[in-house]
């Protein structure tokens, strides 16, 4: 219930007009500069995609050697993909890891809830933390990295894990290791091929530092996946 009663008399309105308006704008701009990343408007341009765009980008991650993905996100990196692909993965990990346990032990079926916080921490740290680390290292090496493009890249590289998680339902140990290794190779190749453009700004030796960081984080992710979530269940 808004009345919007104006209590100013005419004289006060005159005085207000003479108040320097430019100072107010400058103050606002400074505030926008430092704390801009805390507002919603800062992130709105990164959600400028439709569902067909998202599906095309996910398809682009499955064939890493074709440079389709960079052309798809050029100029329009999005944050929707990274956030919600990881959320879907958290759900799938919890569902399938628990389903495996339920099928195995009929007597004491215990539901493991700790997969949810573990999966959340793992996925979001790798998907958002690694680009931050890479940006820091590249800055230290003297080159700028396009930050949101790398976050977008990392987020979509997690979509390799979507079919892998569903396939991890099967109990065959060898099969699981095979698909984990395939996933690791696929996503590492995808990341390196798409980071090549950024890496070319560096010298040869320094490139290997970045490639080393990328590969190490992917290795950590996939090993964690196999050893914690889908470890060998004794019959």
């Amino acid at each position, binding site marked *: 219930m808004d009345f919007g009663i104006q209590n100013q008399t005419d004289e006060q309105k005159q005085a207000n007009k003479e108040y320097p308006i430019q100072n107010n704008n400058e103050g606002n701009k400074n505030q926008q500069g430092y704390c801009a990343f805390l507002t919603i408007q800062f992130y709105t341009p990164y959600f400028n995609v439709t569902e067909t765009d998202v599906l095309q980008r996910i398809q682009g991650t499955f064939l890493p050697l074709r440079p389709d993905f960079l052309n798809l996100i050029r100029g329009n990196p999005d944050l929707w993909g990274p956030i919600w692909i990881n959320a*879907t993965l958290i759900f799938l990990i919890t569902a399938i890891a628990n389903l495996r346990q339920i099928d195995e032990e009929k007597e004491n079926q215990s539901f493991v809830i700790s997969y949810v916080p573990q999966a959340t921490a793992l996925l979001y740290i790798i998907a958002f933390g690694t680009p931050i680390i890479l940006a820091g290292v590249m800055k230290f090496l003297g080159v700028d990295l396009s930050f949101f493009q790398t976050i977008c890249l990392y987020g979509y590289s997690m979509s390799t894990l979507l079919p892998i998680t569903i396939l991890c339902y099967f109990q065959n140990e060898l099969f699981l290791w095979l698909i984990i290794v395939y996933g690791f190779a696929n996503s590492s190749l995808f990341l390196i091929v798409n980071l090549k453009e950024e890496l070319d700004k560096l010298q040869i030796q320094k490139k290997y530092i970045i490639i080393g960081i990328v590969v190490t984080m992917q290795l950590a992710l996939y090993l964690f996946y196999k050893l914690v979530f889908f470890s060998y269940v004794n019959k």
Partner: protein
Amino acid sequence: MEFEAQENQGNNSIQGVINLDPQVNQVQAQQQEITIKQTDIQVSSTLEESVAVTLLRDLRQIGVKLRCVLVPTMSSNNAKELRNWDLWGPLIFCLMLALTLSMSGNNNDGTGIFATIFVLIWIGSFVVTLNAQLLGGKVSFFQSVCVLGYCVFPINLGALFTLIFSFFYLKMFLVIGCFLWSTYSAVGFMKLLIPEQKRILALYPVILFYLFLSWFALIV
């Protein structure tokens, strides 16, 4: 410059005329005082009533809003009701769901389940609403959290059904029914506020949210 002011508090309505012309401000200020005094009488009468009456009134409002949200008829009355958002309803349903699931016999980590469900519901609602806002939807933040929380109620029912029945396929059928009910209500509310081409991007998180909760209700 005159306009009429009407205030509805419960079944009483107070009317007053407020004149913005500065010359008659004083006279009108007295009328405003009379209006405010009448409001004061309303306020003090709610302060003096018994706790039971207050609680019952709040519960009745929660019940009314629940009916608005869950019986998906898109009338303008519904929309007006939903604009008075409150977070008591979501809190009650969240606690009920977390308690039901943590006390069922199929697990040995009741506290972990309670904490996870609680955090999941609130942070999930927060993130889903934020997502809808970032995609350009004109959705008020707390109103959306309120509606998402109220739509958790069918999943509550599903969790209670899984406690009562033991035949797995019957449980699955009931929980799927509750999931579809929740999702249909929440989607019906949110899809009006999102631009056309980004609709699925905004609705998929809602579906994922209720899928996650229903799956918990079924398996735990």
